[in-house]
């Protein structure tokens, strides 16, 4: 079996005992004697200094000779077996985790299904895994008439690949464990094992060592949080445009190494990253692993606030004292840039020949990348899925545009064009079933487009200047050069998915664009402090 499927543990003592007693004839290999091959494999940590079988074999398999790797559980913390192996001690954590978005992904699922007209409201109904009132995401119907018939397939193929329960794609930067191990066992970007177990030494698809990582490094989170979702920005990565001519093949004499199936611009990272803070320094267990109450979407799940560390109530910064500033989220000013990906065109192409998409093969998605070899030659469609492949193209992407809106707490934060879908579908025979269709929210005849709040992780000490928003129609949510054609119309925001959030009202837009006496006065005061510093 090619998959030299390997175990990170069986009981040390037991194996030694078994070997010493010579209970087996030499020809019959008992795969419970893990350490016969995996000598040197690390202990997870002090609290988990178990025999291998305790985590990697079901109880019923522990008492008899096993003759191959088959019964060995490679990912004991995966959703299917987590209760059995981890649940005994970590019941409460696992119960909470099952309410978290890392487990359910219900935020993405319900927002997208709602916008594509597959459900009447964005209330959570389906999850990546069932439980806590959520049903498992249904399969897509065979016949496709509207985008709603395709949305579940899109979610499965493109969105859920970053789920804690999904084994990782084998591409640089994307390797991760499954279940608890997705976070708690550290994988290197190249996915190679570097520990003392010689049987798997240097092999891809294994953690760096067979140990729990504490603290969880930022790089670990980035195995999933690397694209335009939050995470890439914290370390200053902005994905380059997808077309191959934007992935300069050679830079400064060195071949470009892409990571996360993309290539990246290096922009200013977050000051917290520059000072060495990890994701987990701000994001507590509650943020990441759920609270026991199912979270509907990401904005509602994260509870950490700047003020938990930064008390500005008594500081002497003039800008902080401007009346009304309490309505502005810190990130309204202190975020430097964001992911503004305008106009998302998606096409599911079921035709056998997909070679036309070769120039766009690096779009951060393994399903697309695996269709082509490194030179861009089409390898043939993937065989594991009846459905075709989803390709994505943006209209244009910018980091410097920021549009403001109000989040669920009523605070003014940057908003981004999260969902500006246009959907196409070509069937197996090449019939264009959906040609550049804007999905419509259920029954409303309104386009399934939405701007959503974003909390850019691009914080810097100096806020952006007042003029970055005041007097800027783009920031006010009025678009760039109104009436300037279909492409720039994308800069005019659509309302967010949840009614608790909103774009700026007309009067708020007015306030932002108009230079009132009060504005002038405070602007001048801010200037004065700036100059005296």
């Amino acid at each position, binding site marked *: 079996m090619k998959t030299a499927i390997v175990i990170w543990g069986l009981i040390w003592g037991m194996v030694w005992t078994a070997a010493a007693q010579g209970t087996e004839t030499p020809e019959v290999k008992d795969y419970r004697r893990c350490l016969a091959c995996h000598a040197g494999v690390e202990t997870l940590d002090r609290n988990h200094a178990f025999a291998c079988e305790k985590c990697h074999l079901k109880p019923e398999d522990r008492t008899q000779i096993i003759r191959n790797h088959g019964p060995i559980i490679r990912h004991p913390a995966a959703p299917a077996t987590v209760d059995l192996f981890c649940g005994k001690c970590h019941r409460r954590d696992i119960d909470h985790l099952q309410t978290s978005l890392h487990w359910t992904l219900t935020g993405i699922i319900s927002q997208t299904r709602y916008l594509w007209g597959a459900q009447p409201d964005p209330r959570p109904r389906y999850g990546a895994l069932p439980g806590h009132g959520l049903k498992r995401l249904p399969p897509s119907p065979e016949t496709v008439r509207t985008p709603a018939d395709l949305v579940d397939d899109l979610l499965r193929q493109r969105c859920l690949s970053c789920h804690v329960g999904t084994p990782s794609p084998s591409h640089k930067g994307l390797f991760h464990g499954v279940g608890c191990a997705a976070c708690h066992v550290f994988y290197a970007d190249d996915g190679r094992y570097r520990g003392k177990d010689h049987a798997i030494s240097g092999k891809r698809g294994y953690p760096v060592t067979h140990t729990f990582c504490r603290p969880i490094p930022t790089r670990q989170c980035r195995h999933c949080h690397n694209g335009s979702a939050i995470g890439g920005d914290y370390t200053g990565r902005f994905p380059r445009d997808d077309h191959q001519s934007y992935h300069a093949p050679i*830079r400064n004499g060195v071949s470009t190494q892409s990571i996360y199936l993309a290539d990246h611009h290096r922009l200013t990272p977050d000051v917290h990253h520059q000072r060495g803070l990890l994701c987990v320094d701000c994001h507590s267990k509650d943020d990441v692993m759920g609270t026991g109450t199912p979270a509907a979407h990401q904005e509602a799940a994260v509870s950490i606030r700047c003020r938990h560390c930064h008390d500005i109530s008594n500081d002497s910064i003039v800008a902080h004292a401007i009346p009304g500033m309490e309505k502005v989220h810190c990130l309204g000013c202190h975020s430097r840039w964001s992911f503004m990906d305008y106009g998302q065109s998606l096409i599911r192409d079921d035709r056998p020949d997909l070679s036309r998409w070769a120039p766009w093969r690096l779009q951060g998605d393994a399903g697309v990348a695996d269709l082509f070899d490194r030179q861009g030659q089409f390898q043939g469609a993937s065989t594991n899925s009846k459905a075709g492949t989803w390709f994505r193209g943006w209209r244009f992407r910018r980091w410097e545009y920021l549009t403001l809106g109000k989040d669920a707490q009523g605070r003014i934060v940057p908003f981004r064009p999260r969902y500006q879908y246009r959907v196409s579908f070509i069937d197996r025979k090449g019939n*264009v079933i959906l040609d550049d269709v804007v999905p419509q929210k259920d029954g409303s005849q309104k386009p399934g487009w939405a701007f959503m709040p974003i909390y850019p992780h691009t914080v810097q000490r100096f806020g952006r200047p007042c003029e970055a928003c005041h007097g800027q129609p783009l920031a006010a949510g009025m678009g760039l050069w109104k009436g300037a054609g279909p492409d720039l119309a994308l800069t005019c925001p659509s309302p967010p998915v949840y009614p608790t959030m909103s774009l700026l009202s007309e009067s708020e837009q007015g306030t932002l664009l108009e230079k009132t006496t009060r504005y002038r006065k405070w602007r001048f005061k801010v200037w004065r402090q700036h100059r005296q510093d």
Partner: protein
Amino acid sequence: MKIRSLLPVWILLLVFGFLIGRAQYHRKSGPIPPDGCVQCHQADKDPSASHPVAVMGCAVCHIGNPFAGDKKRAHIGMVRNPGRLDLAGKTCGQTSCHPDLPKRVTHSLMATNRGILSAMQRLWPHADDETVMDVKTLTNRPVGESMALDHFRKMCGGCHLHRPRYPRLGEIGQRGGGCTDCHIVELETPNPDLSRKKFHHPGLTTRIPSENCVKCHNRSARIGLSYFGRFESEGYGTPFKGGAPGPRRLSGGRFYLELPADVHHQKGGMDCIDCHTEKGVMGNGTVYDHQEQQVDIDCHACHDPQQQTIDPDPGLTKRLVRANNRQPSSPSTAIFFSAQQSPLYHIRSDTGNRMILYRKRDGHPVPFDRLSTSGIHDAPYHRRLSCQACHTRWTPQCYGCHETRFDGAMQRDWLTGRKSTGRWTEGRGYLRFRKPTLGIWSNGRIGPFAPGCQVFINVVDPQGRIRPEATSRHLVMAGFDPHTTAVAVPSCEDCHLDPKPMGIGQGVLTLTDASLSTEPVSPVGNGIDSPLDAFVSPVGEPLQTASRAKSRPFNREELARIYRVGPCLSCHDRYQDPVYRSFDDALQRFNSGKTPCREMLK
């Protein structure tokens, strides 16, 4: 059977047809045909009103042997495309036709490509002993060692007037051909069947459609795209149509987005030739180094025109008006001229401050205003600004141009038409259209700049290894008119407080200890310390080369002067504001606490 019985009818019809045709022909052209070519070839219409075949015949342009009776002898010495620059002296340029033009055109930039050649040889790896300043000389020269010229041959040399025209589909087949390159219409029939009577002869015109310009002028500065509101996009081909990347395509697998067009096009429907004069385009016989020297119009030519009472060449004016054949009447009022005395015969004064332009292609009147002098355009503190500094809506900016030469592969040399060793591929960093950088143009005025070009060169040997010694980079910013004119202008703050237009690049400016500094946002890396959109450091050190010897980014003092107005702009944001009458005095009064501004702090 049936056919045989109808034979007499057929013969009769043919005879009649021949007679009628002959009669028609004679009625149109007079009794004696000008040359023998028409015995075999008859076009469906004349190339143009001023080139009537019936009077001029064919051989006058196409040479050949017009009175020979048989095809073979008749075609000796014949040229298919009389516009070819190497023959234009004998065809278009013969004494009784356009005698001055072949020389002028041959010396013009579209024929020499001197601007591109000089820039590339100055900025790219190149040895001086190979230096060549016109494309014709380069064509006749063996391939040398210069990387600059190798790149020119393969990536740039497809757009010049000496290039022969060959029947290929798309833009490529429409480029080149000398005079014909611009003056031909009906491009969609590149290969008509000449043996057929009534074949379609391409039309000749001086009302040159803009498509003829854009077939070449759509790369680098992309002026031909921008003017019409097209922005070469980041190559996504979105929205998808019909199951494929969408139809908004440009040549070379490129796509475009729709942005606001230049107001001259958007509101006036004007074509390239409505601004660009014959001297600006075809040159005046002088060999210029750069485009801006040959172009002889600027905004002032129309919006602040200088009246002349004496026309230096009334014959030319008359000829141009006649050739244009769309102007409402011969101009009776004083005539306006371009800087090089090209008659701007199509603009007239109207009442008051109003002017009218009659479009060259259709004579449609386009009313417009003269430059206003209401304290804005004549503000002393903005006297160095070009019109484009404020009235440019957007500028195509292509940051980072990654050129890789594969020594082991072959690529077609545009000049020879044959493949030669070395293949180039081109990659990009990122594109932008908003907020061009400003700097000092070679004419001393402040105007928009964009990358032009920021080249990172790598050479890969036949074994696939990088040749480190051949790796180089050349970061250049070029000043030019982006051709996206808008009536609306940015706010004061948009330039005085934003580091990008100042040339410092995207970021946040901070002033500490009276010294300006920036926290950049744009990408860094690739072996350079400053971002690609940083033309200059906040303290005035140039970070990139300017494309002209005399152009440059703002210097330290200029940057400080731009930025020091910033704090005042929260209140003093009108042109007419008294503090700008003498800003130094105002600042002094402010610093000594004598201005009411202090009240604001309470």
